[in-house]
């Protein structure tokens, strides 16, 4: 297999939502001493962008998006350690969760997949996540960004809890805390002193890009 073939295979693995194939292709590429930057720039990024575009146009659906993001994540786990230190730290860790008391997961999953696809190190804590656990995880993983999703008027208050708790611990400045989900709004984000509010996944990515360098 030539170098181009290895890159093509890595690309197709993501386009076929196949984690196992992505890992195999990444291993083959590493064996051939392909520059890890090339694997990322020529295979993973274009593939996941293509998947993201198709999802935007609803040509493919949520399960495909999530599986493609998994494939990128699985191969990145092999590729990342080989990359220059400055690249490794260039994209921040983001902790993503649906807040305590809320089990709506679809918006949160879209955001987690899109951020993962954009190369962020995403820790998806799932739904109904306790405020204290969320902040503990953010601390442990040295996250720069927290994305909290709330879909019900009754659980928006948990977004405020997250911010108040981080403030009480004296850790507020460590994280950019972003909020979103159906009933939330920019005004709500201002009221609870969140760092940002996003209407959709593009909004989340823009904010994450903005805050990933700063802290």
């Amino acid at each position, binding site marked *: 297999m030539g170098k181009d073939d290895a890159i093509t295979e890595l690309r197709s693995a993501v386009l076929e939502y196949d984690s196992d194939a992505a890992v195999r292709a990444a291993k083959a590429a590493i064996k051939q001493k392909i520059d890890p930057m090339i694997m990322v720039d020529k295979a993973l990024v274009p593939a996941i962008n293509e998947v993201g575009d198709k999802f935007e146009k609803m040509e493919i*659906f949520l399960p495909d998006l999530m599986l493609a993001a998994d494939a990128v994540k699985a191969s990145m786990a092999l590729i990342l350690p080989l990359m220059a230190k400055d690249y490794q730290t260039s994209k921040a860790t983001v902790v993503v969760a649906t807040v305590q008391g809320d*089990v709506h997961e679809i918006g949160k999953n879209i955001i987690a997949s899109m951020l993962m696809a954009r190369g962020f190190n995403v820790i998806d804590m799932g739904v109904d996540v306790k405020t204290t656990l969320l902040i503990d995880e953010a601390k442990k993983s040295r996250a720069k960004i927290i994305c909290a999703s709330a879909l*019900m*008027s*009754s*659980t*928006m*208050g948990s977004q405020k809890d997250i911010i108040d708790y981080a403030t009480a611990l004296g850790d507020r400045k460590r994280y950019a805390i972003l909020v979103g989900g159906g*009933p939330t709004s920019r005004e709500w984000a201002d009221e609870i002193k969140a760092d940002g509010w996003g209407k959709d996944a593009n909004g989340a990515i823009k904010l994450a890009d903005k805050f990933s360098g700063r802290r």
Partner: protein
Amino acid sequence: MVHILDVMEKALEGKPISENDYQLKLFAAKANEKVREHGIKFDRNEVIPSDNSLADDIYRAAVELLVEVGAYCTDTSRILSYSEEEIRGALRNAPQEIWLGEGKERKRLAPRKIEDKSPPWCFLGAGGGACSSDRSFTTLVEGYAEIPEINAITTPALTRVGGMRIRPASPLELLGAMRNAVYAREACNRVGRPGLPLMNSLSTAESDIALAAALHPRYGMRASDGFLICCMDPMKVDFNRLNKVTVVLSMGAPIGMCFGPLMGGYSGGPESTAVSNVAHHLMGVLTYQSSWLLPFPLHLRYVSSSSREMLWIISVTGQAISRNTDLISLNLNYTSAGPTTPMCLFETSASVTAAVVSGLSIESVGVASNKEEDRTTPVEPRISAEVAHAVAGMKRSDANGMVNELLSKYESKLANPPLGKTLFECWDPERRRPSPEYQKVIRKFKKDMAKIGVDLRPEL
């Protein structure tokens, strides 16, 4: 027969699997596989198909899907498996009629047939729509209770108690659920219809404990009300929901499982979402011990049910269920646009028509995606009910033509819908009427409907 203890046994003994693997690798993959195996195809131009074999293929695919993937319990991380024999037994034993309400309002809810002339059951209101105040809650419910076609009320939800935003499973939610019961009953009393059933009893009660708390006889809920319990998409259940099931069974009231597969979400495209929607009916009778079902499939982007794909999903689901079972099923529809916009009224007319001619009854309507506080009025469900009665008995092929005309009026605006006005901006609670501005929109809407062959009550 599968009873609640059997459900628990399955939840405790079933095959362990992670939630992610269940929904992505098992459910989503199998739903697609079933679509391919049965050659099911969505046709953009025939949103209300007249092809019986399509409905039967979807039904077959749904049975196979449930048998092959089962339901999933998120508290035990296990699959609840059902055999085809168990599914057949549950269908045989499902009630073929339910009596709801009291006194003069006591009525029979029964399954309907395709192109059935009998009017659908009209379960009206903005189910679960968020209210900013007690006043908007009671204004809405009073307005619903006065709708001539109404059979049952679906209440909105309170979001604040004592000036505080309700938190799930907290005393605020319990107090909110109690108020929800009392206010809804009082609103019906005030307009002289105390017997109307509240079929989504307690939309303010998200948790099991709040539901149980508000069922104390002091708050006036009755076994002749219906009780909705919402399934987690796709085909998931947890102890919180099974607790609700157990509580409602204990009072001898009929459970309705509601489920909202999102097209574009785990269920995939229109075809697999239709198969999932039908499979959820069968799963609901078993896992949630339901006597009636409430599908509300929605579009992932638009969070509404009026696009072409959604109308098709509603129609083929109704046809599959009514041709192959005696289950009682009511489709709940959402619009993208809001009050005072013609688009909102056209959207709900299209969705309701797709349901009614395909053998379903209706719950109507979640307005402007049902997510903003007070962005809903008693007008939209009233219009839904008028249309529902007017189209009962219409041929599917005629309905297809009519719905295509409706689509041409709003389809291009779905991505950026006009949100219209909020309750007190366009509804006068003292006169119990829409504002003059809204009345004008309704009159024009009725003229437009007459032009495409649907005659509605003259607007005052």
